[in-house]
């Protein structure tokens, strides 16, 4: 039993915190980054590479640092506190996990160094109009054609897809729409013929894309996994996004408590009202429970037992989703009008928390997974 970080992990946390303090310390700068063509600042992405964050989860033999879910948790928590816009979760954590678990050594040798150097961004194109949160619900097709495959279909809400150099696309080789068998993952060059993308901002300021694949040819060597690989990567992404949520909640609660101590009504700081103190306490309790689940998720994410791992992620994501809604809503209420404005950070923290619940399955979805 040990909940302490190692010295190395503390160093990692401090260097990430320092990077974000420089870049995001002044919240207004975030607006400027979001308005850049990719929806984030490429110079900051280069700093991620320089600090080693983009190599963090990969094997040393592919130029990585061999970090595990706890290291990812540390990075994601800081991303959450700062509402960082860079596509770390989709590219390094989610797509990175697919490559680690599903790609051939040849593909890893080719792609991972590019990710680590900040030269390649990868997005996972799995959601479809009808699929909601079910990774096995796939209508996009892949058919064998000579020495490769031809992919056909539409993907929606591909997070990070606007700026991606490669897409990892889930496609059905055989079977019916929701069959667990017959699904394969393909690494597709985002500029390949037949790929069209429409990028956009999302509610929380991150960016995504609609992706259409029309007769897109992919070499057989670019097949990088199947449904179990996608599910395993999604589990790692869930652990990461849980840590991000904890960072968002921590920042939001600190802002709320600080606001309550300075906002005066009826001649006193509103923090003297016990009804409001208790509300803030409930937020804190929810966030600490959420933190426990984020740690549980991180410590379960590397398990090879798919069932045990999946259950842990379902528990964690359901708890995090519920806490995220509660903390977000109460923070806005305790702030009053100022919390509703675009120029103030609290509202943006609230929006990111809301969207985290809709990413990789909401609280209800995971509750039902567990209850099933």
């Amino acid at each position, binding site marked *: 039993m040990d909940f302490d970080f190692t010295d190395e992990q503390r160093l990692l946390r401090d260097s990430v915190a320092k990077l974000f303090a420089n870049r995001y310390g002044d919240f207004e700068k975030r607006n400027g980054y979001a308005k850049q063509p990719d929806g984030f600042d490429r110079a900051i992405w280069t700093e991620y590479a320089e600090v080693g964050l983009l190599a963090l989860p990969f094997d040393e033999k592919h130029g990585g640092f061999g970090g595990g879910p706890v290291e990812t948790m540390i990075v994601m928590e800081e991303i959450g506190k700062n509402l960082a816009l860079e596509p770390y979760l989709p590219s390094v954590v989610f797509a990175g996990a697919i490559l680690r678990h599903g790609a051939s050594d040849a593909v890893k040798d080719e792609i991972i160094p590019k990710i680590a150097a900040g030269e390649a961004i990868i997005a996972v194109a799995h959601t479809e109009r009808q699929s909601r949160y079910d990774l096995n619900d796939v209508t996009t097709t892949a058919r064998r054609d000579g020495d490769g495959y031809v992919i056909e279909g539409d993907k929606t809400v591909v997070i990070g897809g606007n700026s991606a150099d490669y897409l990892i696309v889930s496609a059905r080789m055989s079977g019916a729409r929701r069959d667990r068998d017959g699904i394969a993952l393909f690494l597709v060059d985002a500029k390949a013929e037949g790929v069209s993308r429409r990028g956009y*901002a999302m509610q929380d300021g991150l960016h*995504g894309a*609609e992706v259409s694949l029309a007769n897109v040819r992919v070499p057989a060597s670019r097949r990088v996994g199947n449904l179990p690989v996608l599910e395993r990567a999604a589990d790692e992404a869930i652990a990461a996004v849980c840590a991000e949520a904890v960072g968002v909640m921590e920042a939001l609660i600190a802002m709320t408590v600080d606001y309550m101590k300075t906002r005066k009504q009826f001649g006193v700081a509103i923090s003297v009202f016990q009804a409001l103190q208790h509300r803030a306490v409930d937020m804190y309790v929810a966030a600490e429970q959420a933190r426990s689940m984020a740690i549980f998720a991180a410590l379960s994410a590397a398990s090879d037992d798919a069932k045990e791992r999946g259950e842990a992620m379902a528990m964690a994501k359901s708890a995090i989703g519920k806490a995220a*809604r509660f903390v977000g809503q109460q923070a806005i209420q305790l702030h*009053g*009008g100022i919390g*509703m404005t675009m120029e103030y950070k609290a509202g943006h923290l609230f*929006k990111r928390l809301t969207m985290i619940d*809709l990413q990789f399955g909401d609280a209800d979805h995971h509750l039902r997974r567990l209850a099933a």
Partner: protein
Amino acid sequence: MELSFSSEELAFRDEVRAFIRDNLPRDVQQRMIEGREIGKQDIVDWQRKLNAKGWAVPHWPRAWGGQNWSPVHEYILIDELQSAPAPQPLPFNVSMVGPVIATFGSDEQKKTFLPGTANLDIWWCQGFSEPGAGSDLAGLKTTARREGDFYVINGQKTWTTLAQYADWIFVLARTNPQAAKKQEGISFILVDMKTPGITVRPIQLIDGGHEVNEVWFDEVKVPAENLVGEENKGWDYAKFLLGNERTSIARVGVSKQRLRRVRELAAKERAGDARLLDAPWFREKLAGIEIDLKALEITQLRVLAEARKSGKHGAPDPKSSILKIKGSEIQQATTELLMDVVGPLAMPYQRSTDAEDDGNATPIGPDDAAYAAPTYFNWRKISIYGGSNEIQRNIIAKAILGF
């Protein structure tokens, strides 16, 4: 005890439904169903149709367009408008400043303002909240200094809804800074928005929309005859105004309409192999909100029945605070459920109504998806404004439980 409406009340409800069906433009209704904004002119046109029918200000005195209806008739009209959905008559006009002028204003003010207020020829906005005076409204700092035949106003108002459309603003300003109690030195003054010295600055809300503003007053000279009632009695008029909304505050019709929308969308969404609407866990969630809403509807009718017995111009019933608390909680629950139905497709930012807006031009996925998250974000405000739910709890604690 009798829960149902009388046959006369039912006939009136049918008349309202028919009127809405025959007169409300389809595109306005559709925009409201989807949670999109409706334009100023749409709101004006519709209020004028209601006013021509005698339905814009039925609760006003007869001389100024009132109908001397029972509170139940007023409720039926509002409930039908909300659940259609159709725009409601502009609350700043018909529920706020109109009744104040009709009750406390001079004959000259009544003649000058009431017909145009009912017909929305004059668009009013509310100059109450200030940066330092929210829940503690009586702590307001804006001043009105008497100089000959004028008041000179200085200060800043905030959260001023649709000030960008407004022709006039009703302002609470301090006329006696030396008053013993802070509530005692406040006056209620009508100000033409075109008066030199007024600056309106937009505030963008987290859903990306522009509905509220800051309104700044810098040496704004207002004719003294624009004072409503007596100098330094403005707080009484403000309290009268704020307690005047008991027929619409719960917005039961709005929630009914949104739950219909939830059902429609959930019938189109799939949960695995079945319709989302058929999933037992989803039906339980929906039923939970419907139970709360039914209880609220009956609580609302009980408050109205009480008002009918005691005479409608009595002091506001502190039970109205139940309507505000539960009404806002239920409305927020419905927007949350709608977003959950839309699911991951709620994530793209798709506003496109605002000129300065950087939203996407054509919708991602179905039209339904675009406004689900912004509506959820925006509606967090309803437990904050109009006396926050914390203030409503204070009212119940003091006025009903006697703490």
